[in-house]
């Protein structure tokens, strides 16, 4: 790995492991101290590595330092509590002496348990996702703000209230019972899904980081698949969906980091291993009675890995969108459906459907209208692309739209 990215990379992969293990050890009510120790460990790393060079095994180094910082914390706490509450002495001494367990097994368990602790029904879905992004993914307030398209203040307050609430509820970092797993799993999956999307579609131009986010989402989901109690059809469907999307990661950008449109992508750059893994998990998802939105999205994503413009493909895709919209309607899915519709029923029918959505502040709405009108009503297509241009948030996006206008 290129050295300039080392710390951000380690932060993405190791922060939540340290926080999870320490919070499990300290108790959820002290999660902020666990976060502080984890952040401080990275700061220490930068200072010592800067002066003394990189250690041979940076991850082990981080664990070692985090463990020592945690032990110091417990020791200080114990001294303090012994002074004010001598009767607790025995219990406290014991807790101080026991080590911080950074074994792979405990790291894995702690992370899973942390996922479910955060996705507790006592706090809103938005808070759960926000807190997950903070604790499990090491997101800063800024990045969470971007992910939710809101402002810092809102996110800051939301996280604060969520932490307070979880403290009041005396949440423990442990695996919930089977019924609770079922009900909380949906939020866990939403969080993973959002994390993946942040990496796959975000405005952040840093490719390595974005790929890290996608891989982290897949890693969290894989942990759920590997655990007997959480290996449910929807979990497999989500993992399948992410594999299919991730298979195009290399093909989506050219050498200059510019977006390459799906139609123009070099299929040779698609990752066949990820496509076949996607297929495998989609098969695993087909067991049981449950059908989730991830099933349909994964199936749609499967068809995206099949290039070529066959009627069979588009009929399938249209059908899948219809089913998806029935169980989980979203304007963006409805918009994407119109593209499949145009392949089956023709462009003017698709334009009529798309216009009903009337998403006037969404660049993708105008992009789609532009595409659908292309070669049918180029004047209208140009008008739509120009509106999309004004709404686009990145230079790369504006460049791609400019190109479309020129090609009309």
């Amino acid at each position: 790995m290129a050295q300039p990215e080392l710390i951000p990379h380690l932060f993405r992969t190791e922060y939540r492991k340290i926080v999870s293990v320490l919070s499990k050890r300290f108790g959820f009510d002290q999660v902020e101290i666990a976060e502080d120790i984890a952040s401080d460990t990275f700061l220490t790393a930068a200072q010592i590595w800067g002066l003394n060079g990189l250690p041979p095994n940076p991850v082990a180094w981080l664990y070692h330092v985090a463990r020592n910082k945690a032990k110091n914390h417990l020791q200080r706490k114990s001294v303090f509590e012994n002074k004010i509450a001598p009767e607790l002495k025995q219990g406290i001494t014991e807790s101080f002496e026991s080590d911080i367990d950074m074994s792979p097994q405990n790291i894995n368990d702690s992370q899973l348990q942390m996922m479910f602790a955060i996705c507790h029904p006592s706090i809103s879905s938005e808070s759960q996702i926000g807190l997950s992004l903070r604790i499990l993914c090491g997101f800063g307030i800024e990045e969470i703000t971007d992910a939710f398209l809101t402002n810092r203040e809102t996110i800051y307050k939301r996280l604060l209230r969520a932490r307070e609430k979880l403290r009041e509820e005396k949440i423990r970092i442990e695996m919930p019972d089977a019924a609770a797993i079922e009900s909380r799993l949906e939020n866990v999956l939403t969080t993973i899904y959002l994390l993946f999307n942040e990496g796959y579609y975000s405005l952040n131009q840093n490719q390595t980081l974005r790929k890290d986010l996608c891989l982290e989402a897949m890693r969290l989901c894989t942990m759920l698949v590997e655990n007997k109690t959480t290996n449910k059809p929807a979990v497999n469907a989500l993992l399948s969906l992410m594999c299919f999307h991730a298979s195009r990661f290399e093909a989506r950008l050219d050498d200059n980091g510019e977006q390459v449109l799906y139609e123009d992508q070099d299929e040779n750059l698609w990752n066949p291993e990820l496509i076949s893994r996607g297929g495998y998990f989609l098969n695993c998802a087909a067991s049981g009675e449950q059908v989730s939105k991830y099933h349909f999205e994964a199936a749609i994503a499967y068809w995206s890995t099949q290039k070529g413009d066959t009627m069979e493909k588009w009929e399938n895709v249209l059908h899948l969108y219809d089913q998806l919209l029935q169980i989980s309607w979203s304007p963006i899915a409805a918009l994407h459906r119109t593209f499949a519709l145009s392949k089956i029923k023709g462009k003017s029918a698709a334009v009529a459907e798309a216009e009903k959505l009337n998403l006037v502040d969404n660049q993708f709405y105008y992009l789609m209208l532009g595409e659908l009108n292309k070669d049918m009503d180029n004047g209208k297509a140009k008008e739509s692309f120009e509106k999309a241009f004004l709404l686009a948030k990145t230079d790369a996006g504006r460049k791609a739209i400019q190109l479309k206008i020129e090609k009309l």
Partner: protein
Amino acid sequence: MDEFILIFRHQDGNQVASPEQIQIWMKQTMDWIGTISAKNKFVGGNGLHFQEAKTVGHKGIVTNGPFGEIKETIGGYIIVKSDSVQEAVEFAKGSPVLQGEGNTVEVRKLVKGDGVHK
């Protein structure tokens, strides 16, 4: 030529830094030492752990660390060769440590090899 020690003193590190920022600091430290080394004026240096830190006081009383809080940042030092304290100060000015408000770099001439002592 004299040797000077540059000691980094950190204020309480109650700072929130993004991983990207942390990465930049590490890189800056490496670059800073690189420029001193390039002049063949770098003697050595070390970061200091806060773990297993003790303070031994009057009558042999031992306390933990130099600190009472969990919010601490690491200190460290480097030793440079230099003809004058002014030159050593110029080196110190380049230290990324100084980007932190309240942080300081103390510059002291080492006694050993100063022409008077061996």
